């Protein structure tokens, strides 16, 4: 099975012991990498070597390794998730690199995402934004039949486009303002267009935007870096929708 050509790569990786450590770049060599390795499997190989030589492996967040849980979070050569269209780090494969490449690997960098260790950051600010209003206040049980309210296909599709967000944080990491407006806008838009979410739309947008600002995220100034970095291709039109919903809420 391993009859592929192999690559040798130079990795320049951000190492930081803890939130208060200044951190620095360290250089490593990744050997024996094939085009079929995923980016994280390439890091697994490097970590195995580090462990065997008694050194601490590089810490990074990862879990499902199939692009849906939103746990993986690395800036590769300056781009969150590495720059392949609609792709998380875990789904990025080494066939996108070539033998001899030098690769810079850093954690998300945004004021609201403090670093825990190496490439692992604290993204609880995203949970805080959702807790501020990213839901419909329905109770468990006692809800009407699923077909009692018809939702036209285009509305359902629009809501689904927004709901695809995996909450990875790449949008804020890519934004020069460290803004979470794509993340916040996607949830606001999803619930604002669905009949189930309309009743609380005004309060929701205000509360979520307040939470976003309190968490230390900036605002949008139309760079669109977020959409480019988003592994689910969430459209910046949801930021426009967020702004419209906010305006509407002022008159509600």
């Amino acid at each position, binding site marked *: 099975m391993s009859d592929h050509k192999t690559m040798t790569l130079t990795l320049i990786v951000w190492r930081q012991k803890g939130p208060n450590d200044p951190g620095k770049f360290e250089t490593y060599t990744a050997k024996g990498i094939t085009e079929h390795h995923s980016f994280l499997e390439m890091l697994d190989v490097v970590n195995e070597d580090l462990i065997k030589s008694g050194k601490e492996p590089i810490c990074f967040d990862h879990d499902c390794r199939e692009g849906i849980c939103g746990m993986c979070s690395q800036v590769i050569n300056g781009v969150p998730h590495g720059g392949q269209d609609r792709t998380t780090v875990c789904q990025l494969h080494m066939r996108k690199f070539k033998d001899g490449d030098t690769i810079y690997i850093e954690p998300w960098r945004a004021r609201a995402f403090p670093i825990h260790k190496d490439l692992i950051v604290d993204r609880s600010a995203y949970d805080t934004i959702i807790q501020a209003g990213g*839901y419909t206040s329905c109770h468990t049980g006692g809800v009407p039949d699923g077909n009692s309210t018809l939702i036209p296909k285009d509305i359902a599709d629009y809501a689904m486009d927004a709901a695809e967000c995996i909450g990875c944080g790449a949008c804020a990491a890519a934004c020069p303002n460290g803004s979470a407006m794509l993340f916040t806008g996607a949830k606001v838009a999803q619930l604002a267009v669905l009949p189930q979410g309309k009743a609380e739309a005004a309060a929701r947008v205000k509360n979520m935007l307040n939470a976003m600002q309190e968490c230390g995220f900036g605002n949008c100034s139309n760079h669109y870096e977020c959409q480019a970095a988003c592994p689910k291709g969430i459209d910046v039109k949801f930021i426009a929708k967020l702004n419209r919903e906010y305006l509407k809420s002022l008159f509600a």
Partner: protein
Amino acid sequence: MILDGKCPTGPIEKTWDKHRFDLKLVNPANKRKYNVIMVGTGLAGGAAAASLGELGYNVMAFCYQDSPRRAHSIAAQGGINAAKAYPNDGDSIYRLFYDTIKGGDFRAREADVWRLAQVSNNIIDQCVAQGVPFARDYAGYLDNRSFGGAQVSRTFYARGQTGQQLLLGAYSALSRQIKAGTVKMYNRREMLDLVVVDGVAKGITCRNLITGEIESYAADAVCLATGGYVNVFYLSTNAMGCSVTANWKAYKKGAYFANPCYTQIHPTCIPQAGDYQSKLTLMSESLRNDGRCWVPKKKEDLGKHPNEIAEDDRDYYLERKYPSFGNLAPRDIASRAAKEQCDDGRGVGPGGRGVYLDFSSAIKRVGEDTIRERYGNLFEMYEKITDENGYKRPMRMYPAPHYSMGGLWVDYNLQSNIPGLFVLGEANFSVHGANRLGASALMQGLADGYFVIPYTIGGYLAGVKPSGTATDNPEFKKSVEDVNNYRDKLLAVNGKKTVSEFMRELGGLMWENCGMARSKESLETNLKKIPALREEFWQNVKVTGTGAELNQDLENAGRTADFLEFGEVLCRDALHREESCGGHFRVEHQYQDGEAMRDDENFCYVGAWEYKGDGKEPELHKEPLKFENVHLAVRSYK
């Protein structure tokens, strides 16, 4: 010992309603005096924590990820079953119940499965109310698709991301309760011990994965919703962090482990590409609505581009073997059929371990755009991993470990044999028997979380006095000490082999000798090799860093140590079960055509294992299964 599942009796369609009425209640003003621990916040745990918090209990919820939104429920692709019968195709609660019992090869409790089918419809309504964007038709009605093991369309879906949308629904409900202060969320915590006081579950000890601190929490009841254990095969479709650890620690404190040998090998996963590989990726069963499985009839065609192999030279083996269910044969059957073709030397791709999943007939019938609309994200994912375009050439698939039907033993109230310990979702053994049908895992997780535990936990709590959250009982102190010592022991070995080398080795043994086909000989081999590997682990594993910091190597070491113990019990269960049923296939027990041969006379029971101490054989307890509504029969999909 004969176990009693405490199932209600009487006409099956009245059982849950009657039981609900018979359960004691905790009045609203008293609920706030009770504390409940929820470990795991996927579909089952997230839904349960939200619902219990809303009822007024004080809930402490724990997950190992950085947010409850990341639980592996999120990766479920295809859909969720419900007996809504919207398509007018003859579905009913009874039919969903029947299909699930039969799909599980008659190894699940009737009453539990009936309840699941009954509440399935409430789940869809609940999720719609939360704003889950299920697929709709142009008139605005909910859309359905078909899944394996059923001849009706009862599967609701949200593109290829149904698990994600349902999990985000539960996460939003949970977030609302966190905001309301009824649920306190503890992220990045891994449960490492169950605290049992005077025979009753009273709390947990866990490791704070950021600081390394060992922390204890006390409550009036502990719920485990900690998922499945198929990472014991190392390569599986589970997330990297999925482990048996929480369940295993509960087992070592006296909870019985039921049917560990019932593991599901999913037929359509992307084949392994190399030895370095860290996981296998599933391609949703929904693809078999439109994809046709085949291999070349002639071995000399194996080297050819699949599109150049003539129609007559293709063996659509599922359609040939199972004409009435065709490509939608259940998972255990479809997986074994794929293995058979590859064992016959007609497998495709690297190592000959693959079959084709071909969409060309469907594309001809409905067009590429429709196929893209239905499964676009799956085709994208396939291309990212394999660099091949599934629209232009058939996908390559091979079975991979995916789900565990076995789990901690629970009674009808989802309570384990330890009073106060409840087990939800994939972590328990209750409804899928020996094989789970597609789109039923999401159904079970949410059923347990939204509509079962909120009632049954009340029945328990109404009978106990609230005991507060103080951890001053000596059992808590001892638990923290034990966990600390165990951690130090792992760090002290300082050997030469890495944790993942051990895990790969264990996974290899499990897949080779206890995978899709098991024999007395292969299982006995494992019962010798696994203890030897475990011994080597404790003498030669290398774990870097310290306990008092974020240390992923240490986390993996702990999970691997537990798998090294658990794998042996799994093999022991598989060895004792001298029959083939569902996902458990013993080569000694098969019909001439290779179908599984069940032995209802001797094995129509749940096998639950009790821990008797390190180095001692666990003891088997049995819960006989009675079938009063569904006639025990040879399971046929022909």
